[in-house]
């Protein structure tokens, strides 16, 4: 649980973060979304006190971050950044072991943890542990960066555009990897990005920032379907946001129960976008719907997709 309570920051009289309040429940994947200069990175860096607060309070796990020495606080919070910042003179294993060693874990436990994390990030420990960062590709470096952030098993993970510098294919793989890890470990993640697609893909909750102010805070669907302002509507894609809704809504939402149709059936948990793609591919405007067990549930029509 991270409670951000009327937090402000200004540089030279300019409000970079302006009275932002946000309560991020435990285990949520929260995305801070906004254009550059909206204050999202600054807000993120205030959580681990890399940026000092001018006003307001931030509590992590119920504790005011200003009551803890900054180094102690940061060792309890994972941190990954776009430029990765692996230490070039340390091997991959030593990089991952950074925080456990700062916490003076026993040598054996550190070594076991490094192995565990390399496996979690699907990097062969025997192969990768002894490599230097310059021997890795960009995507591998970012995997090591995420492993390093997870090393001391923090409850909270802060990530500042971690996948912005890798190619689209690698980025998609890393996003899937991160979702899997988040679902498996139940960590609270605060993730900064300016990429709406990435936000929709990852987020359980999205906070949209505009000029340091919180413009909207809600689920991806709520933000797409009920934008709180013209700015939010514009930022999440204007007219194109309908297509994004289709990627989030499932066939089950628009199902005609107990009706029937001919053709190969759709899964009820498929997105409306997948349904549209299937109809185009099969030249059909009406398809049957089944559940995972194969039981027929009903049908869906082309008109239902845009209802």
């Amino acid at each position, binding site marked *: 649980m991270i409670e951000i309570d009327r937090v402000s920051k200004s540089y030279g009289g300019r409000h970079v973060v302006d009275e932002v309040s946000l309560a991020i429940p435990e285990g949520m994947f929260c995305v801070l979304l906004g254009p550059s200069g909206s204050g999202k990175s600054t807000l993120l*860096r205030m959580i681990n006190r890399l940026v000092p607060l001018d006003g307001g309070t931030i509590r992590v796990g119920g504790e005011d971050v200003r009551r803890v020495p900054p*180094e*102690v606080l940061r060792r309890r919070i994972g941190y990954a*950044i776009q*430029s990765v910042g692996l*230490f070039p*003179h340390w091997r991959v294993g030593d990089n991952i072991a*950074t925080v456990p060693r*700062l916490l003076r874990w026993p040598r054996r436990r550190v070594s076991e943890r490094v192995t565990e994390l390399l496996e979690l990030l699907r990097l062969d420990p025997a192969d990768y542990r002894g490599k230097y960062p310059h021997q890795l590709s960009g995507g591998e470096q970012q995997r090591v960066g995420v492993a390093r952030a997870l090393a001391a098993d923090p409850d909270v993970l802060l990530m500042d555009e971690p996948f912005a510098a890798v190619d689209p294919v690698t980025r998609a793989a890393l996003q899937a990897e991160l979702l899997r890890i988040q679902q498996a470990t139940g960590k609270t993640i605060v993730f900064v990005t300016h990429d709406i697609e990435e936000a929709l893909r990852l987020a359980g909750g999205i906070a949209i920032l505009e000029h340091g102010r919180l413009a909207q805070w809600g689920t991806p669907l709520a933000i797409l379907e009920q934008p709180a302002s013209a700015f939010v509507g514009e930022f999440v894609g204007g007219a194109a946001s309908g297509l994004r809704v289709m990627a989030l809504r499932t066939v089950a939402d628009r199902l005609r129960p107990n009706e029937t149709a001919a053709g190969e059936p759709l899964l009820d948990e498929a997105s409306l976008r997948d349904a549209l793609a299937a109809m185009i591919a099969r030249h059909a405007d009406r398809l049957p719907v089944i559940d995972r067990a194969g039981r027929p549930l009903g049908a869906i029509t082309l008109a239902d997709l845009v209802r």
Partner: protein
Amino acid sequence: MTAANPATAGSGAGRLQLHNRVLAALIAAGAAGALAVGFVTLAPNRLVSGRPIGFVVACGPHFAAGMTALALVLLAAAVVPPRPALHRTAAIIAAALFVLVLATAGHAAASLAGAAPAAARISLGAGFWVVLGASALAVIDGLQRAGTSPWERLMFAATLAASVLLMTRSGVFDSLSLAHEYWAHRQEFAAALVRHIVLVAAAVGPALAIGLPLGVAAAHRPKLQTPLFAVLNLLQTIPSIALFGLLIAPLSALAAAWPILGSVGIGGIGMAPAIIALILYALLPIVRNAAAGIAGVDPAATEAARGMGMTARQLLWRIELPLAVPLLLAGLRIVLVQTIGLAVVAALIGAGGLGTFVFAGLGQYATGLVLLGALPTIGLALAADFLLQTVATLATGRLGR
């Protein structure tokens, strides 16, 4: 650069093409030096300037033929198509030539001395230095082209140094005026060499102790840089003799005011002002390289280190300083070479060291004595430079840069 070029292939000897211009130029320069100016000089006594003796006369037919043969082999190496093995062989031949040049000079001196009165002095001539320099450069050129590893170069340098030492020990150079001066000043020589090294160590050690923290501070506080570097640059512009002189007055005054200082060796002349001046000169390269080394650390690495909970001290010792090591070593290399050279001037204010012979030799117009001070100084500087370069290459290699 293949034989396909019609201008060079047209002569019919298509494969005879100049592949290594540097080596050819060095051989030409060596040959010109050997033939145009005296290889050694002969003077009737220690205090008058000598008469140059030509290469062939001085060396005798056997040594002259041997050196010519090695030079011709090197020339052949310059015109055959290059391969790494060829460059390595050329370096070995050039090294053999280097040793032979030294042996020839010793032999020439010995044969001239046999026919001359006891007071006569035989010194090394301009021709000798040109040939020796050209062969040394040919060694370096060959090693560079062969892409040798730092260890291989170290082995090469050690072998050359050992053979020079061996020749010295077995008396090859005993008839040269340099050797006469050495035997005449044997006792002082060992003391002066030790004193020189002590001067350098006593200056570079404290300079590191002062300069490294200053460099770190400058890197962390950019506002400090302008005034700090203004002062250090100003110090560097003061001529060394002037700085040694400038320190005499305040230090004498200090010693006069507190006699206890004088009793521990602090005074207007002697080692104290010399070491202070050498420290002041050493500060600029150390501070500049330390600041540049730390400022050059990837900001992402320091951001990540801070974000993971390193304290400022941990960040400095675990991340910033290790990553600045290549530049720190480069700074240390500059400082060592500079201080070894500057310490010669310190002899002027009674600090001792190898400069003593240089200034005594200059005063007496005895080039042998000047060389007795200058050659070990050059040797020390070269050794320090080479060792630190090797260490720096190895340290940088680990970072994969």
